[in-house]
């Protein structure tokens, strides 16, 4: 098993955090993982992406040629990555921001209206973690229990309220897709 996922969006959408969460959860479950963030000169507003490889064997390259999954948070990401996903792969897209749809017919597409969903959470936050919830539901790469543990380790230390918010966001996304 060797699964490559690309997360992509605007800087500030929490794209690198999504990759970090998946990689950490994979590590907690005893799998080999690599997490390769792109980095730019700008801190906000540029494009950011993050490649995560989760594998049962040693990972040769952290750079993915043909990812199985692409998690796309904005329109430029769709344009950039839709043709890189391998045939039979899956795209998760933020339908609140992305108006276009992939023109390929060989992919599975899940649309998640993140802006609408965040309205169910305090302060309209947590879009990226909602997406992570939806992603792990359909990819099955890591269990929701593991992801909750990772959220707790990542956010619980400083502010328990932030962990609570993110846990609600995760479950919201997880239950959104049937």
């Amino acid at each position, binding site marked *: 098993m060797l699964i490559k996922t690309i997360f992509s969006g605007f800087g500030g959408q929490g794209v690198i955090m999504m990759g*970090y969460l998946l990689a950490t959860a994979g590590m907690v479950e005893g799998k080999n993982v690599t997490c390769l963030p792109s*980095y730019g000169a700008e801190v906000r507003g540029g494009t950011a992406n993050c490649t995560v490889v989760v594998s049962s064997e040693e990972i040769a*390259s*952290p*750079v993915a040629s043909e990812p199985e999954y692409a998690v796309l948070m904005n329109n430029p990401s769709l344009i950039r990555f839709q043709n890189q996903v391998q045939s039979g792969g899956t795209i998760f897209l933020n339908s609140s921001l992305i108006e276009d749809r992939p023109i390929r017919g060989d992919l599975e597409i899940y649309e998640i209206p993140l802006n609408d969903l965040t309205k169910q959470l305090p302060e309209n936050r947590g879009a990226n973690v909602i997406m992570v919830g939806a992603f792990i539901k359909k990819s099955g790469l890591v269990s929701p229990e593991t992801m909750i543990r990772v959220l707790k380790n990542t956010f619980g230390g400083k502010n328990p309220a932030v962990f609570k918010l993110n846990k609600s966001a995760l479950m919201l996304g997880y239950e959104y897709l049937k």
Partner: protein
Amino acid sequence: MRGNHVVGEAAIRAGCRYYFGYPITPQNEIPEYMSEKLPEAEGGVFIQAESEIASIHMVIGASMAGGRVMTSSSGPGISLKQEGISFLCALELPAVIVNMSRGGPGLGNIAPSQSDYFQATRGGGHGDYRTIVFGPNSCQELADLTYEGFNLADKYRTPVLILGDGMLGQMMEPVELPQEIPLKKLPAKDWALTGAKGRPSRFIRSLILDPIKEEEHNWKLMRKYEKIIREEVKWETYFADDAKMMVIAFGIAARIAKGAIKRLREEGVKVGLLRPITLWPFPFKAIKDFSKKVKHFFVFEMNMGQMVEDVKLGIEGNAEVHFYGRPGGVILTPLEIARVISSQYYQKRLG
């Protein structure tokens, strides 16, 4: 852990208590990490210096006092540190210098590139000297080689360079960190400047006006370098046993090449990999030995062709060498490199 943080943590566990640096992307997480952690360690000192030149000379000062000390930067900053690196070699002072290299020349960009291979292995500073150069290819190796770097630097009283790149510095992978060395367990340095208490005074200098004595100092350094060449060469292979074509790549490029080779092996293409781990001393002998049975070599670097010169020196004309490079900080995928390798493989009628 993120590659840059791994370097910082491994350094502290190796007993590094002094860090002097100057901000430059893509290595800023190293000084940030050190500024957070070093003040918590006993005797730990972090200074953000006014320049790269000042920081490398602060390294010299702390090393003279016997401390384990590190600085880090990226290409343009390493250029500025060359003066100090030449002095570290001449003064026979241990230190670890990390280069998370980026696209060049000039300011270039902040994307990962391997174009500092010549600078690292030939030395951009003046005079006859060598530095030990490690080319790690994973976060685990960053931890292990940083840690070992401090030991080798002390053992040989010479600076050790870690040549990473922007990708390695930013990448996150699980890492098993080495055990923390208690400072008291480190061997005493009978040359350090600590004040001439209960012993004759010492001086550490590089100015030797008498050419005969300067020549002897050069020979002394050379004998040390020869010992390093004999004892410290490191490399690994991957699918090398039945390979008809050997790929040679270092650092992160070797990871991408491994991905390509794995792909090609699934298609029955008999390619293997030799990855130099020490870029100096370079595994000339290993490459020469391979060139007796493998007649086609494929060198892949994220630059315009630098290590390929060392590969050709190692092969001594015994085999054909093909080079493929992408400079400028372009990250290519395993698929792209697999296509180039297999086109070479079939052109040479190896399969």
